């Protein structure tokens, strides 16, 4: 004995709808406008009721989600830690800036000493010239002057090398600018998240201005793997692009 499978709620609703429509069609064919109108309004009422039931269900779900969010200690914990995270990032930025300036101070002081050394070398050269003039005929003094000259040349070599190293040392501090820009951007994002989260936990929506600012985002240094636009890999790529503009 085969059992007829029971209808699902959706199938039952469909069958009922077909029956109503057939009844309405018959009423229309028979000229029973009152019955047709009454059935049509009943159908529309049912549709509206279904819509309101859905809205009520969504509202209920949303309310439960907010209640769960407010009672979840993790969110409160994150919201309270975010200001700390922002402050730490700013602190790192200040520390690197201070360190970079200290390095640059030392570089500039070193460069001043190199200039002083260049002055001393000039004086030494003048002294050697005077020695050469005074030692006419003396082989030992001539030899001494030659040795002094060799020493001058060595010092000039060291001076040149040190100047290059100081220059490189100064330039290597540009990490502070690049890392500082990235930190500034991350700090801004942390602050935005913090503001949005606090407002959410208060049951209020983030301000429109904050939403616009977050959507606009900040410009910043190119970070591999991030960013929406094509990245010129380096100076060569930038030069190739600029060449298109005869630059």
């Amino acid at each position, binding site marked *: 004995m085969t059992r007829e499978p029971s209808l699902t709620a959706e199938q039952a609703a469909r069958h009922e709808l077909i029956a109503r429509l057939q009844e309405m069609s018959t009423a229309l064919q028979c000229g029973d406008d009152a019955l047709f109108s009454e059935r049509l309004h009943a159908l529309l009422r049912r549709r509206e009721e279904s819509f309101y039931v859905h809205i009520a269900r969504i509202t209920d779900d949303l309310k439960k989600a907010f209640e769960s969010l407010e009672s979840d200690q993790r969110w409160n914990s994150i919201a309270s830690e975010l200001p700390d995270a922002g402050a730490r990032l700013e602190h790192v930025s200040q520390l690197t*800036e201070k360190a*970079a*300036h200290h390095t*640059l101070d030392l*570089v*500039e002081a070193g460069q001043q000493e190199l200039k002083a050394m260049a002055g001393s070398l000039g004086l030494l050269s003048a002294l050697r010239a005077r020695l050469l003039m005074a030692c006419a005929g003396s082989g030992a003094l001539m030899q001494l002057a030659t040795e002094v000259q060799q020493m001058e040349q060595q010092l000039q070599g060291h001076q040149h090398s040190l*100047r290059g190293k100081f*220059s490189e040392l*100064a*330039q290597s*501090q*540009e*990490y*502070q*600018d*690049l890392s*500082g*820009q990235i930190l500034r951007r991350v700090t801004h994002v942390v602050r935005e998240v913090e503001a949005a989260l606090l407002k959410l936990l208060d049951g209020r929506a983030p301000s429109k201005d904050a939403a616009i600012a977050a959507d606009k985002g*900040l*410009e*910043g*240094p*190119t970070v591999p793997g991030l*960013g929406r*636009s*094509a*990245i*010129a*890999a*380096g*100076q060569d*790529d*930038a030069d190739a*692009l*600029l060449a*298109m*503009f005869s*630059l």
Partner: protein
Amino acid sequence: MNKNLKILVVDDFSTMRRIVKNLLNELGFNDISEADDGKTALPMLQQGSFEFVVTDWNMPGMPGIDLLKAIRADDKLKHLPVLMVTAEAQREQIIEAAKAGVSGYIVKPFTGQTLKEKLDKIFERYAAAA
């Protein structure tokens, strides 16, 4: 190359301003002033007699690209050479700067040699146009 050129270095990071200034000193330029963004730089350019601008792109207040556009829109300043030294390395940005009339573009991090090459190239172009 005229080493007495009056140069304005515009960057919101004081370390980067010092670095660019240091490199320019190494290249023999000594008349260098500083500004921390376009908003500060523009009145300085309008009041001063600067002959060259080195600017960053990403700065609060007025970014470098807006400063460049303001310079090109100003009858007194429009011929001023503007070298952009920036970490902004996206194609669209480089093209935008070129279209706005940038004279040279250096991507950070950069070397003193790159700075020298770009300066030479800009001066050559300006000398040829004169």
